[in-house]
């Protein structure tokens, strides 16, 4: 169900996992099911690549080396050598969100990121993680990141920084949710108007949109980590 519109057919409906009863409470389970699908795809790809590691890469190993190598270079040029420590998380976030987004393009599947709860969970995790890294790096001196460039500006800058830091998970959540949910709704609309012919052109546009959204989430996480790592101004 995308925005009240009937979804043509979903695997989760066929498997009766749209809603599950846990401890007497009926909860929406569709996005959890599709998150698990994305995880299963990623795990099996990872195991496949690890099982057949070769010195001269070929096929799927080549793709992974290009994607992950490129992202690592990007992170290291932006954050510096500290970036290598947090790169597993950043690359993981990028691939995870990418596969979650792309699930929306697979017939019979729905993007789990079209549900606000999935995005909120990831955004809150990112928020906690970069603050944890900042505190680990600077100790109590991390508070200096919130106090502005000059000491007499502190009463003004403290609430300002507090607000802009709290706004980060909100904007991360809403951006991903709005984009992916909107794409799902448009896709269902096009499908209702002209079943197969209408959906194929928008596939290309949405492929770009979904890659871009996962890259934006990854890039913002990187910028926040960079802000936590570098010296307070």
């Amino acid at each position: 169900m995308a925005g009240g519109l009937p979804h043509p057919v979903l695997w989760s409906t066929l498997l009766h996992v749209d809603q599950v009863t846990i401890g007497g409470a009926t909860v929406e389970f569709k996005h959890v099911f599709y998150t698990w699908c994305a995880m299963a795809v990623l795990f099996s790809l990872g195991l496949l690549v690890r099982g057949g590691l070769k010195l001269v890469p070929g096929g799927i190993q080549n793709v992974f080396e290009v994607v992950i190598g490129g992202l690592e270079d990007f992170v290291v040029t932006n954050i510096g050598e500290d970036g290598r420590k947090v790169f597993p998380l950043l690359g993981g976030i990028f691939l995870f969100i990418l596969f979650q987004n792309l699930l929306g393009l697979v017939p019979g599947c729905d993007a789990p990121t079209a549900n606000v709860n999935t995005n909120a969970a990831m955004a809150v995790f990112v928020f906690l993680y970069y603050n944890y890294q900042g505190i680990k790096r600077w100790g109590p001196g991390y508070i200096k990141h919130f106090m502005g460039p000059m000491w007499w500006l502190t009463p003004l800058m403290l609430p300002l920084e507090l607000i802009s830091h709290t706004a980060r998970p909100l904007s991360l959540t809403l951006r991903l949710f709005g984009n992916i949910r909107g794409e799902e709704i448009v896709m269902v609309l096009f499908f209702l108007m002209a079943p197969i012919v209408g959906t194929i052109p928008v596939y290309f546009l949405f492929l770009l949109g979904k890659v871009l959204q996962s890259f934006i989430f990854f890039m913002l996480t990187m910028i926040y980590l960079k802000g936590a790592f570098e010296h307070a101004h």
Partner: protein
Amino acid sequence: MFFNNWFKINDKKYLDAISTAGVIGLHMVSATVVGLGMGWYLDRWLGTKPWLTGVFLILGIVAGFKNVWLDSRRLLKAQDKEDAERFGPKDR
């Protein structure tokens, strides 16, 4: 050709620029909304009805503009770096 442009979009430099530009709008709005929400809840908690909402709304708007400023500075920095790569370092 369409596919050439497609690969250009997939180039990290362009992706970075597009993402930074696409992010600016919501950064401003979300800071404003968070400021308003904070002020509203603080007012309800402390019983100082209209005052803290206004103060925090203004703080939120200022924080939003600060976010926009930081983002545009990031865009400018990337642009300068590209120019330096292409035409040599600038003397300004």
